[in-house]
């Protein structure tokens, strides 16, 4: 059964009709905020951005980063999963060949076009190597040219850290 709550609008009374009481009450509330504001800084919500930065939550989807192996190379093996999962087709990968038989592949080019990226995080979900992550705790800073909006593997690796994720089977 639908529980309905009929909202009654306030009936105009003399005190509301002559404006003054409610106007003064409202001004009182404003004045309260005013005096609170100039005496205590407690309620102020502004973040003074470049000097102080709001801490991002742990799950914040920020700038992408490429994780590294112990030897400092990118974990990415250019499997194109992120490029496939990306709804905005902003990831461009070119694969190169490596000697190690268990790695074989590396991204010769790994570019994210931040003009297209929508920060949905699907690439992170799609990565089977724990190679791409968005937990860099940085947001993408807009640039002035299209060229600057492309982040290449070097930029992404700079933000990257060592990934501890084990790979290739529990025992291998």
């Amino acid at each position: 059964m639908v529980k309905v709550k009929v909202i009654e609008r306030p009936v105009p009374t003399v005190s509301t009709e002559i404006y003054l009481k409610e106007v003064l009450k409202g001004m009182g509330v404003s004045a309260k905020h005013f005096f609170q504001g100039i005496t205590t800084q407690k309620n102020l919500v502004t973040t003074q951005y470049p000097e102080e930065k709001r801490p991002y939550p742990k799950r914040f989807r920020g700038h992408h980063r490429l994780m590294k192996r112990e030897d400092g190379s990118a974990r990415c093996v250019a499997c194109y999963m992120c490029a496939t999962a990306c709804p905005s087709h902003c990831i461009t990968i070119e694969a190169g060949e490596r000697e190690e038989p268990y790695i074989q592949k590396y991204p010769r080019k790994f570019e994210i076009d931040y003009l297209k990226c929508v920060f949905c995080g699907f690439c992170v979900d799609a990565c089977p190597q724990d190679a791409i992550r968005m937990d860099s705790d940085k947001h993408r800073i807009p640039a002035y040219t299209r060229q600057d909006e492309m982040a290449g593997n070097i930029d992404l690796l700079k933000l990257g850290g060592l990934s501890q994720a084990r790979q290739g089977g529990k025992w291998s």
Partner: protein
Amino acid sequence: MSDSNQLTEKNSDLRTEFLHLQMGPSHPAMHGTVRIKLTLDGETVHAADVEIGYLHRGMEKSSEAHTWSQVIPYTDRLNYVSPLINNVGYAMAVEKLLGVEIPERNKYIRVLMSEISRIADHLTAIGAMALEIAAFTPFLWSMQAREEFYRLIEEVTGARVTSAYTRIGGLRDDLPEGFADLYQAAEDRLLRLMDDIDALLTKNRIFYDRLVDVGSISREDAVDLGFTGPVLRSTGVDYDVRKDHPYLIYDRVDFDVPVGQHGDNYDRYLVRMEEIRQSVRIIRQVLRDMPDGPINIDDWSILLPPKDAVYNSIEATIAHFMLIIHGIQVPAGEAYAFVEGGNGELGFYLVSDGDGKPYRMHVRGPCFYLVQGLETMIKGQMIADIIPTFDSLNMIGGEIDR
């Protein structure tokens, strides 16, 4: 016929002319998304033609070229004030096509996030409506309260607005630790600010006069025009998807459906204020009753396998690859699933032909129907009433133009 017009007509040498004026798209209050072509008689709106499409992104066409999962970020941008409700609605629609049942905890979290989004949505509507009649302070207070809830959303989903939180058959992630405390802080602030907004606006005669009997619409017209949500309820119809077609766990929580009596802007304001309080009530119950357990269904053909398994076993890797390359294979058929969005019934009509991509995906945005009624609502009103009426509908361009 009004007195003034009689006067005009009686004295033929006092002939006056209509003024044709365009409001929007680049009008300070039109948010860049709507153009209203007005024919004005002095300050009175004689006729209006509402023109939409300035935010058309071809979302329905794009969806046909993406996998079922890849559509989720698109749904963020429907009603971009309460994106999580869109996420939930879309995920539910696909789950309906797939015929899967999601775990209990998932349902609770979805309801929780929906209600948080609804509060954000209503706060925006109230604040914007106040802003458009120059009450700037309540607007910023409501934005302040809204920001508290966006923080919560960010804490859970990783982004304030572009949440992309639901997955088909699951969720991106479980609630973070200590979420209840975070929520409690936000709620405290919300209720405090709501009281202040209330003191500034509700009984203030200027505000009252500006809204009462402005933008009224009758119950019959509202139903006929396909209105849903708070705007329909303000006319006295007690239709709420959450009550009439309970989805997820809405049949297990206790809340009231606030209903107005006149269908004017003031009633919409009151209904929204009350709905925020009801949403708070729902959230409290949800947080109290939320069970432990998994949040995702255990089916690798629908949801990506857990990361650890993907890294370490070929089976999960294969499932992972197949799901990302080909998408979820949804059996052929069609389904219409609907949720109570911030502005009313948000429906997803999906047609599948058995492929990894939607064959047709249509969104029934509640705003589309609300804005359709705008012309009726502003005809004969003053030019200054257009924008508050427009905002009382909480017009969201993303939802209309799609």
